């Protein structure tokens, strides 16, 4: 049906603004604050979450009719833990340097409330294809959020943004503020970004509303 197609696209997009996990729902805060000291950390954390989220959403959705309601949370955790172990082993094998930094936060994805939240609030009630879209959308939005926070903190905290061996700018332009790499810096960045996004969304909504009001007035 046409309607499901529309909602399929929306299921993917909604994670970016309307149900942005970090700035709107304020969930998954633990990795958000802990690993975003650099862009690259944020990126790999995000990628891991996308994989886990898509995996768990698909399986929860596919088996939603056979999972007994009473024990659904333990079942969710199994579906989440499986891809987390896969990610952890892959990362250890191929990205040992990143794994050293992310460390405990990779296995901790199991209890990341973003993933449980999507499973409980979305995948448990929706068809498989929608759930996949939702998982990918939310996961990618989460990745972008982590990278943006990481970029700001890395830039202000070290004066540079580094990708592997390349750094921009080569020499810091100002005296970096060490506080930005510490948890308080993370909270401040998160708070400011959350405020800015909400202001922007409120402005856009207001303009939309004002536009439609005029439209009604004319016809």
């Amino acid at each position, binding site marked *: 049906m046409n309607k499901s197609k529309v909602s399929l696209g929306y299921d993917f997009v909604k994670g970016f603004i309307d149900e942005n996990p970090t700035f709107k729902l304020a969930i998954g805060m633990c990795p958000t604050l802990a690993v975003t000291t650099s862009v690259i950390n944020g990126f790999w954390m995000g990628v891991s979450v996308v994989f886990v989220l898509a995996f768990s959403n698909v399986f929860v959705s596919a088996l939603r009719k056979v999972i007994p309601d009473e024990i659904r949370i333990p079942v969710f955790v199994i579906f989440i833990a499986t891809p987390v172990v896969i990610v952890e082993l892959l990362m250890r094998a191929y990205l040992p340097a990143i794994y050293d930094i992310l460390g405990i936060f990779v296995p901790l994805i199991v209890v990341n409330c973003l993933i449980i939240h999507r499973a409980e609030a979305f995948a448990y009630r929706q068809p498989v294809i929608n759930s996949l879209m939702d998982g990918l959308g939310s996961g990618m939005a989460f990745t972008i959020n982590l990278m943006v926070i990481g970029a700001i903190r890395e830039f202000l905290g070290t004066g540079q943004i580094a990708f592997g061996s390349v750094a921009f700018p080569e020499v810091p332009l100002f*005296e970096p*503020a*060490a*506080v*930005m790499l*510490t948890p*308080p*810096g993370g909270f*401040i960045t998160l*708070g*400011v970004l959350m*405020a800015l996004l909400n202001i922007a969304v409120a402005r856009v909504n207001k303009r939309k509303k004002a536009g439609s009001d005029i439209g009604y007035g004319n016809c």
Partner: protein
Amino acid sequence: MENRLLITSSPHIKSTRTVQGIMLDVVIALIPAAIAGVVLFGFRSLLVILASVASAVASEAVYQIAVKREVTINDFSAVITGLLLALTLPPNVPVWIPVIGSAFAIVIVKQVFGGLGANFVNPALAARAFLLAAWPLHMTQDWLNPRAYDAVTSATPLVAFNSTGQTALTFKQLFLGQRLGSLGETCILALLIGGLYLIVRDVIDYRIPLGYLGTLAIGTWVFGKPGAFFQGDGLSAMLLGGAFIGSFFMATDYVTSPVTPRGRLYMGIGAGIITLIIRLWGGYPEGVTYAILFMNLVTPLIDRYVVPRYYGYGHDEMARRKAAGGETR
């Protein structure tokens, strides 16, 4: 025709005291310390003070214009924040430090939480803590020798005092501010003039500085000397570091201190205890900033539980006792 008469709820007369007046009093009280800072540490101090105040006022104006609120820079509260922050900085810091610090204090700590009266920690101190975490080297090494104006990066006398329990400085040197330290914290004489002015003008409650300095002095006397009790130098503990400026000007900030007299005493004592712990057994040389910030956070709790004795309380208490007695019988 009838004149239009105004109808309002009583009372119909108000005292002449205003928020602006109170803030102006605080600014006046800080001027001696600012002058002392300039005299002791030279022209650089003036630059730091002016940069800090200008940045605070400009930040407030810019933010309020940006969010389309009424611009309230004429209430002097931003001036106080800028001035207080400047007085707690080392005199030789780069000028951009007070500029960023004041902007942080006004925008992040004060305005974002709702502006005047709504901040939950002292803006100047929160900004100082931020600067200390952001640029620790500048905040702990950019000292100037008093009256000689040459740069020094050694530790302040408080560090030695904390570990040995004694200081080589005489009382006169300490009282007049002849030591390394932040530009407004060293001259006790100037701070005392300002603090007494505020107490006389009934702006601040003497209980906060009394509780704070008293606790600090007694605590240092008891525990201050390594390996011995009751031999510490309580007097120097009060005069060294930022205890004086903190207890008279920071901890007494209305918005972030308790509203009842008894609560204020408790806040002073609490801040004194935390300062003592940080100084003697903590990792930082000075604990005034964190002690007061901590007590700022505890203030709502103090306000909740430390309440004045209401009129007629004795009757309720008697009734309660009677009821309790009846139950046991």
